[in-house]
């Protein structure tokens, strides 16, 4: 057995693993149908919002193509931004949120009984779909941001122009307006999901175009007709694998690494590697290197907003920083071990332990069906059970169940 051989097999096994964790394109299509329908309702002829030309688009893992199947029977969490043509002078955060809420809860709205909780969340209205699609859709009311402050900080215009203002009911200015401009601290009502998605896709541009080109050839259609969500690049697969590893290892722990930090660092460290195994071993150390410490303050910068620090919570709870580095170390050590002969022999149990029984099992089943069948090491000596006399020990254990 050699490292090279193990590496080749690992690439395939990791691909299979990522496939079992992946959310299929059909679910993306379903999600798109859902939020487009909400968009049509919000912008309908008789809607009070129609005058503001509402636009609806997805953000987060469904926009980046990094969504993973939930661990247990949890639902898919789809975030969509609802952008209205208004300014901060025309409407307060409260009013903006309420307008969208009114339309969703309108007597003839099919969503009026699906809003949970009824008074809305911190930043969004959540539509709970009762059917078995297992979705819930978060709609975030927003307005465009004047973005000169971003270009002044050095962000490219084609990314900055998508900057938006969201509502956040925990800000002191929620009822009366918006947080003031010109502050040096990050303003939680400012965001740029479209810009972030554009940055993310640029980080994996070479592999993304390659994958779409290949799919287009397979289907004998034009590459323009392929949606981004129909393909996965090694970067997306690495992020999916890392997210699930995190889910299993830190299930229930409040200090677990958060997805936006994992995604941002991985995309920053990724250099269009083609092989999954190679990608993990380049990306994980790279993630470590891109975590900044500015004079004692942990900083993971938002690549499309230099004022925003994704790791601000690490400074409130230093344990979060510890956990993050501990996790990176663990992943790197595990993967280095995996390619050795000793490590590779137990790849099956490693995958089940670190990624969940189902994902690990399925990946290994696919691998095994390509490799040899189970091997019997020691043959039986008899086919009937003997019944040797067994002496019970002083006091045997009492059976239990959890």
């Amino acid at each position, binding site marked *: 057995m050699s490292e090279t051989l193990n590496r080749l097999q690992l690439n395939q096994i990791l691909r299979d693993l990522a496939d079992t964790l992946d959310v299929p394109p059909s679910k993306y299509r379903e999600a798109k149908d859902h939020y487009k329908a909400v968009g049509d309702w919000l912008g309908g002829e008789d809607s009070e919002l129609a005058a503001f030309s509402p636009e609806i688009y997805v953000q987060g893992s469904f926009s980046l193509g990094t969504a993973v199947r939930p661990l247990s029977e949890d639902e898919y969490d789809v975030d969509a931004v609802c952008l209205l043509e208004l300014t901060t002078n025309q409407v307060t955060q409260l009013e903006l949120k309420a307008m969208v809420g009114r339309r969703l809860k309108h007597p003839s709205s099919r969503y009026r009984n699906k809003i949970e909780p009824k008074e809305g969340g911190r930043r969004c209205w959540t539509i709970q779909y009762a059917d078995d699609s297992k979705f819930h859709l978060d709609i975030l009311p927003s307005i465009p941001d004047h973005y000169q402050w971003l270009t002044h900080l050095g962000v490219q215009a084609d990314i900055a122009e998508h900057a938006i203002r969201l509502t956040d009911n925990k800000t002191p200015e929620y009822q009366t307006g918006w947080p003031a401009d010109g502050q040096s601290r990050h303003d939680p009502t400012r965001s740029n999901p479209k810009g972030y998605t554009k940055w993310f896709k640029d980080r994996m541009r070479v592999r993304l175009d390659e994958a779409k080109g290949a799919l287009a050839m397979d289907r004998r259609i034009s590459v323009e007709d392929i949606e981004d969500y129909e393909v996965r690049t090694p970067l997306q697969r690495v992020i999916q694998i890392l997210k699930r590893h995190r889910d299993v290892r830190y299930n229930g722990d409040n200090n677990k690494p958060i997805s936006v930090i994992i995604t941002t660092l991985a995309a920053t460290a990724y250099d269009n590697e083609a092989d999954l195994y190679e990608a993990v071993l380049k990306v994980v150390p790279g993630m470590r290197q891109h975590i900044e410490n500015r004079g004692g303050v942990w900083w993971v910068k938002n690549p499309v907003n230099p004022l925003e620090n994704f790791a601000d919570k690490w400074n409130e709870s230093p344990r979060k920083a510890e956990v993050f580095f501990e996790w990176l170390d663990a992943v790197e050590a595990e993967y280095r071990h995996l390619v050795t002969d000793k490590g590779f022999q*137990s790849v*099956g149990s490693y995958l089940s332990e670190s990624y969940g029984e189902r994902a690990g099992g399925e990946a*290994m089943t696919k691998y095994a069906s390509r490799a040899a069948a189970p091997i*019997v090491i020691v043959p039986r000596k008899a086919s009937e059970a003997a019944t040797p006399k*067994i002496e*019970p020990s002083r006091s045997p254990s009492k*059976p239990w*169940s959890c």
Partner: protein
Amino acid sequence: MHQGVIEVVIAQMDDVQSEHPGLELVRDAHGQFCVRGPVGFRMDYGGLVIEDSYEIDIVIPDNYPELPPTVNETDNAIPNDFHRFPSSGNLCLGAPVEIRRRFAEHKTLIAFINDQVIPYLFSFSCVRDHGRLPFGDLKHGSIGLLDYYIDFFGTDIVPTLKLLKCLADNFAPPLGPCPCASGQQLKDCHGPKLDVLRPHYQPELFEAELRCMIELARKEKFPLPEWDVMPMRMLKQKQSRLRKQQRAKKRNRK
């Protein structure tokens, strides 16, 4: 799996097959080693003599023999409601720390089969044929675990939880007073019992069990001196939550 582990398992199969010749060692598609086949016994306990056999599957963990194997019954002879883990169907031979403790006495497959698996199978045969449990059993869930520890330490609920806290926090000063309030120093009282359990279970695992028992006591409205039995990490979380609430109250007053 480590080459050394494979060698240990193959060597131990000798003893296994001399008493249970129908058992074989296989390696499945996941690379996992298992001992499978029929295991039979003739056992005499308290006037009950039972001769029986079951089809079992013993899975060897990668860090064997540091940790004991898990075992399942593969012929559906034992129903799911008789002491089996709900997700895997594995046979629940006893309280987890107890299984490890007993296994650590010999660390061999034959001892595991004869001292832990067969008594379990004998128990089930007794229930099936005579309607009673020969060695008793533990109730389901945290309450069963609590009963195990109460029995093991030979004291009441609150001192038992305090002793568990020593294991969860990995803090048991031998010259300090024993948590059972006997007035003796720990080293002369329950200290040796803690020493028996401690090597077989990490503090995090004791902590997880203790947390579940505290949650159960809260649900049942059983009064506990929480600050004396909560594991250190849970205390810290409670303190930080209280501090947050106080800060929030101050902010709201402003």
